[in-house]
């Protein structure tokens, strides 16, 4: 698109940029290489793509106009929020336009009576809770990146977070969506109260990683701020014991708001950083358990029960945060653990997989063996209550051959999780990074079904192309004539022939 990859811009790229500039204003179109390079990665360091053009629309109408222009030109595009994703999902090739939605950052409505908010996609997650706080409400999904990530990105990825154990992931909290489809058509999905209007298209859209279109308005459920909170820190002398304690807590019938685990490598990284939380360095693992609710006496009693269970299952000590300050400190260590691990080495791969909770002890030991076999540092910090693992591999990408070893180790870790009955991602998404694992958990029919659904929303596969579903692994599907081309009809085929996807740079021949 830029006529010279990373090297510079051709005349065709300039004409597209000029057309985009007429819609959003020239200063919101980025064409210079140094500017485009700043969008070449997301939160995962192992994938890099330099987009052809970056455009930052400032309103829903501008989004629609941009999408319609790109549809007319047959140019693929990639929606992006704050770029904190961890799957390479919001990266665009140089034949595509990267549409950054951070300027759509208005909280459009907060309805305290019905506990609902309506936001634009670029609203930063934590800002919504701050805005809802005067009404005694908050937005529950709390990914670790919540001070930076956007709710639009959360919707695309169906983001989770520590407190999703009790309150559910993003999909649980999204009631309705206004979406712009690939052809620029605006469609409202769901209903104001959250009841699906027909089939559950809101549920289908959430987590579709931008492949079904762009959510321009998002209606979410807010929850009452808990009046009572207890935060416990339990430390263990063995990883396995900590994993077994997780199962015991879950089986108790008391659902903690959060149940997080950190291993010794992670504990030390945190304690060496400015986020030091007072975690015991000699522990093989700590569990951070939070209970919340609206009744002080019930939360206190449940916390006592859980503390007893933790002790009975091998906790050396169970500390209860004495006040809000200590609680915040304990949580800061957990939430900033990924940042703290940045100290361990130059690069960090944050992995994401889910296993049945009862298999946590075995899987954690297997991950330890894989790390040792490859000579890698793997730190575990994760949502233990959900069985949602985050084995993080620290490495220096400049060392020859090391990246390949990290890749192999990641693959083996995924294989262990799949063998345990788990899945390859619980909250980070497939993006580019996990395309290769998709055939390990879905057969050709399941993958083809996903692709066929995508074609309903985006018949030419122009929105965030090349992500989520590995096309080569799809079995033939009725109406989808060719797995490679995804052509559904003669009309589609004719239109496809102008797509910049397969004939790079053709979009500018006008």
């Amino acid at each position: 698109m830029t006529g010279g990859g990373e090297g510079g811009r051709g005349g065709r790229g300039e004409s597209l940029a000029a057309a985009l500039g007429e819609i959003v204003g020239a200063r919101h179109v980025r064409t210079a290489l140094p500017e485009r390079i700043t969008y070449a990665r997301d939160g995962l360091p192992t994938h890099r793509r330099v987009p052809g053009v970056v455009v930052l629309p400032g309103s829903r109408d501008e989004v629609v106009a941009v999408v319609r222009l790109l549809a007319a030109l047959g140019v693929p595009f990639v929606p992006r929020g704050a770029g904190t994703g961890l799957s390479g999902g919001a990266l665009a090739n140089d034949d595509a336009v990267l549409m950054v939605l951070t300027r759509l950052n208005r909280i459009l409505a907060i309805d305290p009576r019905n506990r609902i908010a309506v936001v634009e996609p670029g609203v930063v997650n934590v800002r919504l809770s701050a805005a809802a706080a005067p009404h005694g409400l908050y937005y529950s999904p709390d990914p670790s990146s919540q001070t930076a990530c956007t709710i639009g990105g959360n919707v695309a990825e169906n983001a989770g977070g520590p407190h999703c154990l009790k309150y559910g992931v993003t999909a649980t909290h999204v009631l309705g969506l206004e979406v712009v489809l690939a052809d620029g058509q605006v469609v409202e999905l769901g209903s104001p109260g959250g009841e699906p209007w027909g089939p559950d298209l809101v549920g289908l859209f959430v987590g579709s990683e931008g492949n079904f279109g762009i959510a321009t308005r998002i209606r979410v459920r807010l929850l009452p701020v808990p009046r009572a909170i207890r935060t416990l820190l339990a430390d263990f002398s063995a990883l396995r014991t900590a994993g077994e304690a997780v199962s015991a807590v879950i089986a108790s019938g008391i659902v903690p708001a959060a149940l997080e685990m950190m291993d010794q490598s992670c504990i030390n990284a945190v304690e060496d950083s400015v986020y030091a939380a007072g975690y015991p360095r000699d522990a093989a693992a700590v569990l951070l358990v939070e209970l919340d609710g609206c009744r002080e006496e019930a939360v206190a009693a449940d916390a006592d029960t859980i503390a007893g269970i933790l002790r009975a299952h091998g906790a050396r000590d169970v500390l209860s945060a004495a006040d809000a300050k200590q609680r915040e400190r304990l949580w800061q260590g957990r939430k900033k653990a990924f940042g703290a691990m940045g100290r361990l080495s130059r690069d960090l791969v944050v992995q994401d997989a889910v296993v049945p909770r009862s298999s946590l002890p075995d899987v954690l030991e297997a991950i330890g063996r894989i790390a040792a076999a490859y000579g890698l540092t793997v730190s575990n910090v994760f949502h233990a209550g959900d069985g949602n693992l985050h084995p993080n591999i620290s490495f220096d990408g400049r060392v020859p051959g090391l990246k390949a070893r990290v890749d192999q180790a990641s693959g083996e870790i995924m294989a262990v999780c799949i063998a345990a009955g788990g899945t390859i991602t619980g909250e980070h998404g497939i993006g580019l990074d996990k395309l290769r694992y998709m055939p390990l958990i879905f057969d050709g029919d399941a993958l083809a079904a996903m692709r066929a659904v995508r074609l309903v929303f985006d018949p030419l596969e122009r929105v965030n192309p090349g992500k989520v579903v590995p096309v080569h692994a799809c079995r033939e599907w009725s109406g989808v004539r060719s797995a490679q081309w995804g052509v559904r009809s003669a009309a589609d085929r004719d239109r496809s022939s102008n797509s910049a996807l397969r004939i790079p740079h053709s979009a500018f021949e006008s």
Partner: protein
Amino acid sequence: MSLVDRVRALLGDDAVDVATTPDGVPRVAPGSPDAVALLLGTAREEGWRVRVEGAGTWLPADAPADLALTTRRLDKVPAIEPQDLSATAEAGIGCDLLRQQLADGGTWLALDPPGLAGRTLGSVVATATAGPLRQGFGAVRDHLLGVTFVTGDGRLVQSGGRVMKNVAGYDLTKLAAGGFGAFGVIVLVHLRLRALPRADQTLVLEGSREDLAQVAEDIAAAAVQPAAHELMSPALARRERWMLAVRFAGSAALVSAEEAALRAASGGRFTALRADEAHALWMRAAESFATRPVTFRVGGLPDSSDELMDLLQHQVGDEWISASPGIGAIRWGGETTVDRLRRLRRTLAGLEVPLTLERAPWPVRAAVGHFGAYREGVGPLVAGLRRTFDPGDALVVAVEGTE
């Protein structure tokens, strides 16, 4: 070769029972998900129209079809994992049997769908019919980890998984749950369970609808967090007046604290039920809906519940109503006409409230449709999805009406 002979050749003699349906449609009971796929693949090739049945206790088995596919032999529960709080069950298992097996392992599926106790799991999932517990534990979709379904052309499609979180690929489970079978036949369901609540207490209050609606608001304002919070019409509650039934389920400490908060918020007016009384109340209310010819649900904003109930009363009567005012969900049961349902759906659509027809005789379903009055642009998406999953139009489902 006749259709019946063809099916016998495909699935074996014991899978076919010709004489049992009232309308003479051959009923076929495949014994495995693969057999369902084989049957529907053949149906697509032969151009057979297939209606799907479960235990026959919810949707009437009256859709015109060449054959009826019943899931009743898909009644196995391959896995219950109390430690993981998950289970895998085939779609034809009755909810009562499943509930018993789960309880034996100390686990609980926090769903109390309308209908008879033996209603199949597949029916509940396909119609997304949650009951009063939707207030505290969410919609049907919130209890699903994954499903496997067979498309109208006989493909076995697996979606989701059996772990607590999963964002691998698009979430086709959401399409299957509440799709009324339009996108395929659900054959296997992976469930998210809870530990059996240590305490379970129901309290009730009778009064006028207006009075109880005010109490419901006071309860919400006091941040009481019930598992169920249901306003029932007198006929449904089998009382003289309307009833507000509040249920708490969880740890003993939680239930006791919430009950105290409820009493404080309501001036101590609620009466606590014994466990057997509570069981009878909730079960009768659920079963009552299976005795009415038409059932539908509407979903609005919580603060519009009263207005919506007025509207229902005015247009179709309010004899059988069960409402969760805390989340704006209302279920209606009774007798009514196609014209009234169409008019009501149009009126509700103007208020941005969808009406989903849950059960009705075929002529009503066919005319009104389970869904309708979509917002602009939604219809083509639904039609596209339907073509994707049932390209030969083999599955007889009244997705939209004929208006």
